[in-house]
């Protein structure tokens, strides 16, 4: 099962290496990872998507909590949470296909950010499921390039 872990960590060099080392050292793959400072510049918020059963994730969460530089960890998967991801996708688009792709982007509230002679670059922000759907629909046109921010998530309210 996929889990979304979020951690508040000290904004210092070496902290990310510690966290990544802890997870990779146990043989788990990190599917996506996003880190950036919070409103408190001395702390960063880290959001990580990891595959593993509940027992494994419980152990990973505990081990992360044990790190001195980790202030707080939560496994959001069991909680009510909001998640978003940003993607930039370049799709092959001949002049005949362009209108069709732009229409599709509109349906997903995605935005065309660059137009080239043979392709379009589209920006989209959304929940993971929606992004997966959008990418599936773009696939037949030919995806030339794709950059994803990785999921960011917060628990909903308190």
């Amino acid at each position: 099962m996929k889990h979304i872990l979020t951690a508040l960590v000290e904004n210092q060099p070496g902290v990310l290496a510690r966290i990544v080392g802890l997870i990779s050292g146990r043989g788990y793959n990190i599917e996506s990872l996003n880190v950036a400072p919070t409103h408190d510049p001395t702390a960063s918020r880290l959001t990580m998507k990891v595959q593993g059963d509940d027992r494994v994730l419980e152990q990973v969460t505990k081990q992360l909590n044990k790190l001195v530089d980790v202030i707080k960890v939560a496994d959001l998967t069991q909680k009510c949470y909001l998640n978003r991801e940003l993607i930039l996708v370049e799709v092959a688009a001949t002049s005949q296909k362009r209108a069709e792709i732009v229409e599709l982007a509109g349906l997903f509230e995605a935005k065309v950010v660059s137009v080239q002679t043979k392709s379009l670059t589209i920006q989209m922000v959304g929940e993971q499921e929606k992004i997966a759907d959008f990418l599936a629909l773009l696939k037949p046109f030919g995806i030339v390039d794709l950059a994803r921010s990785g999921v960011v998530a917060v628990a909903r309210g308190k």
Partner: protein
Amino acid sequence: MKTGAKCVMEGLERAGVKTIFGLPGGAVLDLFSEMYHAPFEFILSRHEQGAAHMADGYARATGKVGCCLVTSGPGATNAVTGIATAFMDGVPMVCISGQVHTSMIGNDAFQEADTTGITRSISKHNYLVRSADDLPRIIAEAFHIAATGKPGPVVIDIPKDVQRSLTQSCAPKEVNIRGYKPVMDGHPAQIARLAKAINEAEKPLLYVGGGTISGDASKELTELARKAKIPVTTTLLGLGAFPETDPLALRMLGMHGSVAANLAVSHCDLLISVGARFDDRVTGKVSEFAPNATIAHIDIDPSAIGKSVRTDIPIVGHVKNILRDLTRQVKPIERVKWLAQIAEWNKQNPFSFDKTTSELLPQYVIEQIYEVTKGNAIVVTDVGQHQMWSAHFFKYTKPRTFLSSGGLGTMGFGFPAAIGAQAGMRDKLVVNIAGDGSIQMNFQELVVAVEHDLPVKVVILNNGYLGMVRQWQEMFYKKEYSASRLGQAGRAKNEKLKGKRQDIYLPDFVKLAEAHGAGAIRVDKKQDVASALRKAFKADGPYVVECRVKPDENVYPMVPPGASLMEMVHSMA
């Protein structure tokens, strides 16, 4: 204005450091220059691995944070085994290493290694210091982190320019780390739940680990066990947490545990783990461990709970506080039937060896050490057969009297750790029981013991083998003794030496000890053991007693790897 190096010395002094173990080098010359005027006893090891184990042994024997100081690159990498050893066994230690000039980091500079990268997974925490202004805070934090929670080693890597640069103030800093707040008191509801379980259990058992000793909770444990009449088994690192001479004592459990302890685990209806972590050498086949029991787990480390065994009653907090609260709530119960069963198991299955033979058996030597010292010694072991026999044939009654590398199983640990223990406990008899394999890994430190008048006694059980390797080869690898023979005779074809002197054992430990300035004696016969030990223990300085013991003695009982604790093997037959 003070230099970073001066700040380090002031920080160490403030942290209560009295003794430092280490070895200088280019990247720590500024620290050593300050050390020249500092009020510490400095013990110069001959290898950084030795320095780290000495700091570790010092910490295990005294309960204080051990401290070692090494240079960059090879100095730090040599200390790595010592840091990892302390990490696995939860030993409080601060290791300071030099680092190349900040501007040279990542440049493949002379004697450069990524020390914080290398030690990240084998230390409780580490620091790469970027400014001398941070030093007072970092030193204070390091000692706090090392000593609290589940203790462990902390590494502080200090670049040369940071040691030399000036800072406004070395004033002490109050430690406040927002991501590090160990839980001290157990949850009252959980403690009440466990008290109720103890009061209702018919066959409770305490399973006690090294956390009870590092948590200074032997007294509280003993009170609980005696009040509620709960038998006690300990792990290797838990030896001494509860007096092994007590009728409630079952001795050690696990792979080479006592029959009584392993039977008790398999039959108990409530297993109370205190500062232990259900190591694979303890549990055997996990699915058949304590099959009839409700399992309670008291530990300061939340990640230890539920890691390998299902836990019914978890309690996170400091063992000392939890045991005290628990003892208040348990009822004095006689448990006549269960204790009679325990007494019967103990009586039927003591650790044993052939006492009738005229051959010199390693177990006999250890029993004699126990007799001659009357149990009043700090025993420090290396790793292997002699380590297990030291657990079997010496009875430990006080905490911090049995020091051994349990988790990492580091051969070469024992002797330098014994030197560190002696440096911390000058008035105690410190005996290092070693194998002929282990002792050769750090023998060079003998000069340190001689120079500093640290009268450590080394008893080498020389069986000419890497004995535990040989035992596994005998039992599980078709008796093909590949590379486990230390003597020349009887080696496999591809290990045979070319020289003519194939019948002698090298090195000559007596000559080697004498060359280092220590006293030494060799014993071949059973009847000479006690007198040789007396002579060694009475001697003023360090002393080596080499016992040429029977080569192919095995450690029994043994739970084969992957088997359940009920499947103990008692002999090869």
